[in-house]
């Protein structure tokens, strides 16, 4: 079925290209969207839905007349999870294909590999993942949720509901380290303590020792910041050892749909805050899910990355149409007005002028022992306020830096 889809979509692309070539009415040049998503390698499980979301959005926008009358031409390359390929392919898209906008990147490492290259150009770059936050860069528009949206909702909730003692299990790279730092900062404000913190090398799949360290430390709940398929094995192994502690996370359920991949009750008592998960059932979300499943009937779950990739194109469309231009400077003028909003499937989403990060409708969800997802709390719209608070203001200066709670901008 997958192969058939691929052939079908290839066929459609050929047909569309042929249409452009032959139709004299198609006066305007197509608008080129460069997309870098991993659809092979270890991150394929995350990259595939992002590619699907982008394809769905492009198809819908083109059918409805394109952006300012111009059809979108999606140029997708597969960097295979390799940061060197991210750099090579982004150079190719920017200088050879001369794309109007660049979208993509999964890990923070791949984003940081891309950013210096995009910064040398006047091309806007959309990063569509949730991430550890802190990038203050005028070329970049971030569509995913960031820690102030995910952690400052989740951690106080977990402390209040389950207790003050937290054990952190995190992947040992920039996402895990910086997220753990966020946890320490927020925990201090609500009076919690970290009773253990363990950083796991990527690719580790055996957790018997970690499970016993946790039992020894006797935490009230776990903060799970593990990443990748190998590290996800923790849930199965912890469940087999009857660990059965409440868990919180910023990346589980909505992103890796672990509650669909693992047999219950491995994800029992998991809590997460997210701007999107497939179980949202507002009319707009139901409508979106119907369109997605019609195009990708074999997709097991619509995750937040796929959804964010989809809304990124609509955000771009809205920005370009308001600016009546595709130039970065003109798009940023629209963002600076504070009126860069779209009605997305989650609800209203706006780009914050100071940080160029998206505001999101945040909901806190929990998973039960049958792996059913329940919305525990609806926080409404939450702004990406942190960068603005610490002094990043892209309407005034372009820092091109990533800040963390322990690495703040220097006061001038």
């Amino acid at each position, binding site marked *: 079925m997958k192969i058939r889809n691929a052939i079908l979509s290839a066929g459609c692309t050929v047909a569309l290209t042929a249409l452009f070539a032959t139709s004299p009415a198609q006066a305007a040049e197509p608008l080129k969207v460069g997309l870098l998503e991993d659809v092979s390698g270890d991150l394929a499980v995350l990259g595939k839905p992002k590619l699907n979301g982008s394809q769905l959005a492009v198809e819908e926008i083109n059918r409805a007349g394109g952006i300012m009358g111009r059809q979108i031409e999606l140029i997708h390359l597969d960097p295979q999870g390799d940061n060197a390929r991210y750099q090579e392919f982004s150079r190719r898209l920017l200088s050879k294909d001369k794309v109007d906008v660049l979208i993509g990147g999964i890990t923070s490492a791949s984003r940081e590999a891309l950013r210096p290259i995009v910064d040398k150009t006047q091309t806007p770059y959309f990063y569509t993942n949730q991430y550890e936050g802190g990038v203050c860069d005028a070329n970049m528009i971030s569509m995913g949720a960031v820690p102030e949206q995910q952690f400052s909702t989740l951690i106080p909730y977990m402390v209040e509901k389950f207790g003050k003692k937290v054990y952190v299990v995190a992947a040992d790279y920039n996402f895990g380290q910086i997220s753990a730092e966020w946890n320490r900062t927020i925990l201090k404000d609500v009076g919690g303590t970290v009773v253990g913190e363990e*950083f796991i090398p990527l690719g580790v799949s*055996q957790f018997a*020792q970690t499970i016993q360290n946790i039992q020894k430390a006797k935490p009230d709940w776990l903060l799970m910041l593990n990443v990748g*398929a190998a590290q996800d094995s923790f849930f*199965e192994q912890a469940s087999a050892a009857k660990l059965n502690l409440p868990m919180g996370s910023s990346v589980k359920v909505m992103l890796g749909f672990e509650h669909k991949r693992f047999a219950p009750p491995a994800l029992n008592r998991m809590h997460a805050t997210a701007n999107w998960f497939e179980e949202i059932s507002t009319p707009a979300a139901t409508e979106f899910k119907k369109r997605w499943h019609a195009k990708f009937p074999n997709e097991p779950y619509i995750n937040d990355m796929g959804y964010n990739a989809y809304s990124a194109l609509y955000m771009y469309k809205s920005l370009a149409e308001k600016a009546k231009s595709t130039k970065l400077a003109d798009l940023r003028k629209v963002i600076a007005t504070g009126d860069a909003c779209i009605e997305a499937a989650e609800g209203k989403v706006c780009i914050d002028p100071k940080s160029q990060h998206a505001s999101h409708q945040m909901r806190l969800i929990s998973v039960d022992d049958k792996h059913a997802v329940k919305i525990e709390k609806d926080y409404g719209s939450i702004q990406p306020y942190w960068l603005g608070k610490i002094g990043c203001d892209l309407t005034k200066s372009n820092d091109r830096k990533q800040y963390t709670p322990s690495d703040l901008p220097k006061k001038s």
Partner: protein
Amino acid sequence: MIAEIFSFFYQFADVFAFLILSAAGLAIVFGMMGVINMAHGEFIMCGAYVTVGLVHAGFPLPLAQLCGTLLAALAGVAVEWCLVRKLYKRPLDSLLATWGLSLVVTQGMLLLFGSSTAGIGTPEGSFILGAYSFSVYRIVLFLAALGVLGGIYLIFMSSRFGVHARATMQNAAIAQATGVRVNRVYALSFGIGAGLAGLCGALYAPTMTLIPTMGAAFLVESFVTVVVGGANVLLGTAPAGILLAVIRTALNGWGGQIVGQIGMLLAVIVVIRVLPEGMSGWFARRSR
């Protein structure tokens, strides 16, 4: 106190089982034929996928695991027959060919079965000791690792095939001259190696995430064990497993998984420097 001691033993058993089960198949193929099988992880994945597929189809877990092992073994015989056989005299080319095979298989699985497969859950059963609770299935894995070592010993030390295999291992040309069908020995050994890889995948399938590249999670441990153990499976793999498991368990407990991993790799460097032929080479020299 008893809980602490048992906990250390449990951790040791867990690491030991992982090292032995992931390395046994690789060690046989390397020791018998000098082929460094880069597609080892894919045989592991094959065992895991068959097991999970059959459990979803309603088979009981042990039967599914048996089928996964057998299918991986058959796949191994097929691969030996059409790919590896041509390359026995060209070890570097066989490394490249099996690596290519591994890329083709992982990407093929990604296209055919998608990027992830639903898991089946670890069999129930756990027990409590002191402040800790333990999963029974991890003990089963340890026993399986011991069983694999015992099985290898029996096959190679007390069966006719074992005599032929050891003769081939010492000197293939003379073995052939005395009437041993060397090609069949090779095919069977490769099949046994692949089957053991499949068994590893089948046993770990309930406890892990199922993705086409899951074999990679076993690769470091399997290669490290084989390098430390040396070319002789019988003399090398088991002591290498014990040595590395003790080092890793102690360091894991003391400084976490990163320290454990670093310590294990440092130990490997030291062993290669001091005993270039691995532990089996050292044992063999001492007994001479």
